[in-house]
């Protein structure tokens, strides 16, 4: 057997025979549970003994030929995983989990706790025995790294995305009163509240589906175009304040929830600064126009443009200038070059940016909550179906299905538009071309959209920072440091430094959780992207869709589904920091995937093949060839997952506990209480911390070194964002 196969077999045995199998809850007197082998032999958990079968199988087949050993590993992996998962779910804290098992085997007073160290180690060993075996049987050209990655990604996504999400979705078929499941499902899915078009004919509201669709398309289009304008200015013009411009586009992404909405209200609300100015100066009546679609659009455009920018800048930078030069040599003018060479090459970036903007908009909860007025969208409807006074999980499930269908639709439209064309422009050949300058008209269009937007952002953030330093924002604008003192007070006592501020606890927890989850998220995301772009296997399209699943569903639904799925054995992790980390990884992974896919589809596969031909393994190829070329995507993925772990709110509301409280839930509590000053002071602190972290990430990852010259005469290479 290969060394790696030995390794996983040994790990399986260690987990089974040496490590404590179960996780013991705090209230239990026994501090450690027995390893499975002893718990099985001495009677406390005899149902674990059948696991000996898959653990012995590879040993029995040791002396046989390579093919049968590989098949033995595959069988061991499948049997082991299937048995562990089945017995884990079938037999829980209160005996049998399913009624039919109880009727077959009779009631029992035995129980089992959640998986502990031993069970987890063994479970993962089975998974990798399976992938090792598959590789040895020649699957994916016998590449162990690729099969292992596919196994890891699919296995964990099934467990941490598919399982919790399906628990929520199946709620849509809960029988409603007398009606059967099918009828209830049908009624919920065809509710006029969702689909009604009556706003077109009479004075009634339209269905929430149409509201969400309109909002998503508008937000997706606006953020993509704004992001493109910024990306073009940053890479293809000699605009003097590029760096400042980039900083501004990143600001909204590091802003905690509610803050932008509050600032917008204070500017454009009926009593807002701008409104008052126009009312006084031009006698324009005060109105509440901001509440509804305009307000949501404005805040979402502010919040999501940076993501589009981050996706697009990598793509714009990656376009091979020699193609544009070739176009010029063939006497095309700047506009023709842009229209027929640059623009088509931008398509993967545009499509991915639009898809992210569209889905982010659909799943956004905070902004519609504060600024939505009477414009209902699916995400808020779902939230209140769960926690509102209706308390109707069936309706929440149905609405979540509608939301998912919208996302599937967007996903397929995106794929149709991209088609099967090739967008590779990063090849192994050196490219000494010079990127073409933008056509003049287009340049001014970019300036005209991006600059006012940047100024607007600047004003908004000045106001936000200002809000943290005044007594009562909007009423009493005298300077005060009270809010910071209440949040981040420090006292020197006889026992040493006392962190007396109320926000310290949540701040430390937040940073810690974000710092742990960001590299894991980026790693999983880029690995998945590599599998999607570079490998071909059966079921790839559905695999890609499942990876997007957790992103498309509003955070609240994810939060509730995580409690439903992980509050009881086999995996009991509610109330811990781990559930927060897992939630962040699988919720934020899609952006890492998108960034990775967009960047990777530009890199010529011949580079990989070249490395492989020279004898590198696929793991080495990834590390030495693909990763260095992916640096912009790595930065985007790391930054995004770090920041989202700090700023996301709806998903974590249900997952925080007294011990693991997060900054956002503290901020939401303050906002609900009307203490905007405290909320803003905390947010301002977080913004500064995140800005520092982003700088650090950029510094640590470094820039992609591709031989390209810039369009301006400046010789130095632009620093990628």
């Amino acid at each position, binding site marked *: 057997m290969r060394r790696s196969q030995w390794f996983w077999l040994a790990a399986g045995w260690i987990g089974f025979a040496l490590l404590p199998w179960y*996780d*013991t809850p*705090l209230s239990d007197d026994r*501090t450690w549970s027995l390893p499975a082998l002893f718990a099985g032999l001495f009677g406390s958990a005899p149902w674990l003994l059948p696991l000996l079968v898959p653990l012995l199988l590879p040993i029995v087949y040791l002396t046989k030929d390579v093919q049968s050993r590989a098949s033995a590993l595959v069988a061991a992996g499948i049997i082991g995983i299937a048995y562990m998962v089945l017995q884990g779910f079938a037999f829980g*804290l209160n005996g049998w989990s399913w009624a039919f098992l109880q009727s077959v085997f009779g009631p029992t007073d035995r129980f089992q706790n959640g*998986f*502990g*160290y031993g069970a*987890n*180690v063994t479970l993962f060993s089975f998974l990798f025995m399976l992938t090792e075996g598959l590789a040895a049987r020649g699957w994916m050209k016998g590449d162990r790294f690729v099969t292992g990655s596919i196994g890891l990604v699919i296995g964990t996504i099934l467990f941490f995305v598919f399982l919790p999400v399906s628990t929520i979705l199946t709620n849509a078929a809960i029988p409603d009163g007398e009606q059967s499941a099918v009828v209830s499902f049908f009624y919920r899915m065809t509710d*006029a*509240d969702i689909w*009604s078009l009556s*706003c077109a004919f009479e*004075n*009634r*509201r339209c269905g929430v589906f149409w509201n969400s669709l309109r909002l998503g398309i508008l937000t997706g289009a606006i953020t993509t175009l704004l992001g493109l304008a910024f990306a073009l200015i940053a890479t293809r013009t000699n605009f003097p304040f590029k760096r400042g411009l980039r900083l501004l586009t990143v600001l909204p992404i590091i802003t905690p929830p509610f803050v932008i909405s509050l600032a917008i*209200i204070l500017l454009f*609300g009926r*009593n807002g600064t701008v409104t008052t100015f126009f009312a006084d100066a031009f006698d324009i009546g005060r109105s*509440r126009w901001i*509440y509804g679609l305009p307000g949501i659009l404005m805040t979402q455009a502010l919040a999501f443009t940076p993501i589009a920018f981050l996706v697009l800048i990598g793509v714009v930078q990656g376009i091979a200038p020699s193609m544009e030069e070739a176009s010029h040599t063939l006497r095309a003018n700047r506009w023709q070059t842009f229209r027929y060479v640059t623009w088509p090459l931008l398509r993967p970036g545009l499509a991915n940016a639009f898809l992210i903007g569209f889905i982010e908009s659909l799943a956004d909860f905070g902004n519609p909550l504060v600024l*939505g007025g*009477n414009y209902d969208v699916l995400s*808020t409807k779902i939230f*209140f179906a*769960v*926690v*509102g*006074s*209706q*308390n109707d999980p069936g309706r929440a499930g149905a609405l979540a299905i509608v939301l998912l269908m919208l996302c599937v639709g967007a996903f397929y439209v995106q794929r149709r538009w991209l088609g099967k064309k090739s967008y590779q422009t990063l090849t192994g050949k050196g490219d000494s071309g010079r990127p073409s300058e933008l056509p003049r008209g287009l340049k001014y269009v970019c300036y005209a959209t991006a600059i006012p937007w940047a100024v607007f952002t600047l004003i908004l953030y000045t106001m936000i920072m200002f809000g943290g330093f005044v007594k*009562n924002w909007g*009423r*009493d604008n005298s300077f005060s440091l009270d809010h910071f003192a209440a949040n981040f007070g420090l006292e020197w006592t006889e026992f040493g430094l006392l*962190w007396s501020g*109320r926000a310290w*606890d949540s701040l*430390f927890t937040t940073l*810690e959780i974000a710092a*742990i989850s960001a590299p894991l998220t980026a790693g999983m995301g880029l690995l998945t992207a590599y599998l999607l772009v570079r490998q071909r296997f059966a079921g790839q399209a559905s695999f890609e869709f499942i990876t997007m699943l957790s992103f498309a569903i509003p955070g609240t639904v994810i939060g509730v589904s995580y*409690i439903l799925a992980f*509050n*009881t054995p086999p*995996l*009991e*992790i509610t109330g*811990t*920091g*781990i559930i927060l980390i*897992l939630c962040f990884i699988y919720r934020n992974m899609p952006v890492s995937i998108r960034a990775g896919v967009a960047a990777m589809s530009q890199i010529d596969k011949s580079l990989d093949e070249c490395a492989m031909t020279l004898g590198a393994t696929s793991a080495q190829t990834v590390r030495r060839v693909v990763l260095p070329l992916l640096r912009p995507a790595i930065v985007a993925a790391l930054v995004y997952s770090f920041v989202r772990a700090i700023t996301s709110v709806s998903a974590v*509301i*249900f997952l925080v*506990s*007294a011990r693991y409280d997060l900054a956002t839930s*503290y901020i939401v*509590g*303050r906002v609900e*209480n*009307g203490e905007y000053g405290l909320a803003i002071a905390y947010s301002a602190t977080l913004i500064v911390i995140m800005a520092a972290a982003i700088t650090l990430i950029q510094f640590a990852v470094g820039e992609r070194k591709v031989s390209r010259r810039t369009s301006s005469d400046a010789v130095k290479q632009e620093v990628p964002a």
Partner: protein
Amino acid sequence: MKTISGRLRLLASTAALAVTLSNGAAMAESLVLYCSVGEEWCSAMANGFSRATGIDVAMTRKSSGETYAQLKAEASNPKGDVWWGGTGDPHLQAAEEGLTEEYTSPMLEKLQPWAVSQATSSGNRTVGIYAGALGFTYNTEVLEDKNLPVPSCWADLIKPEYKGEIQIANPNSSGTAYTALASLVQLLGEDAAFDYQKQLHNNINQYTKSGSAPAKAAARGETGIGINFMHDGVQQRVGGFPVKVIAPCEGTGYEIGSMSIVKGGPNPDAARKWYDWALTAEAQEIGASVKSFQVPSNVGAKVPPEAPSLDTVKLIDYDFKEYGSSATRQRLLSRWDDEIGSLN
């Protein structure tokens, strides 16, 4: 406050991804509290209890709807001990579904009759800890600016001059607004109440998601008048905003903030200790010290002078059992959706 080094434990233990954190610390008696009032009040209560009993309180603050959803999700393996605060309806629903534990506190006899009746109607699975009446919060500057009279009755609110000036929450999302809906039904009769709301609809500028949002909007002048619990308006006034709070002349409904013990929670003894302590006069006076002006349920507790006294407000005889039941709630809410919520 925790030290930073104590937090490094998490870093170390994430290595095994799906393993629960082992908590090796010796266990002092502790309590897991789900709290559904403002952050300030919640932490003041938690600290007060720790000081009085030496029991460690791990507190999580969530709105009452969120806590109810969490209790349901956790039902097979409860993680919380006590659910304290928040409007009474979700507490009654939790009692109806058997999510909470029966307990008859020796403190019951010291409580106001409305608090005791909350306990009796739920089979002693919940109890009243404070009360607050519905009223109007109006912005004095806005009304002056627009030359509008101060509204003093429900009937005033449907006058055409208030067009676009009134805010109330959506009863589908907010317990406050559901209390208002149920109060109007009890005050006027069901059909008349829906007629009234259709007329009111012409004056409403927004149905907010959260129940206290209208008070905050009135405070900032985003609306002229908000319909909400009076203590939410008082809080804005104390916070320095130009608002006044008034109770409608025809009579009004009220909420009973409640407390329940989670069934099967990890620390049942500590939970009962909290329950008894939270019904004492001292514990109930903590609210006013952190600017929460609800009316306490302990007869001996001092009513804060800012609190809208329930004696001067004309209260209807609110039928919590009938209007807190799932069946009535669903019927009224779907009728509201059909007749009011779908109007443009």
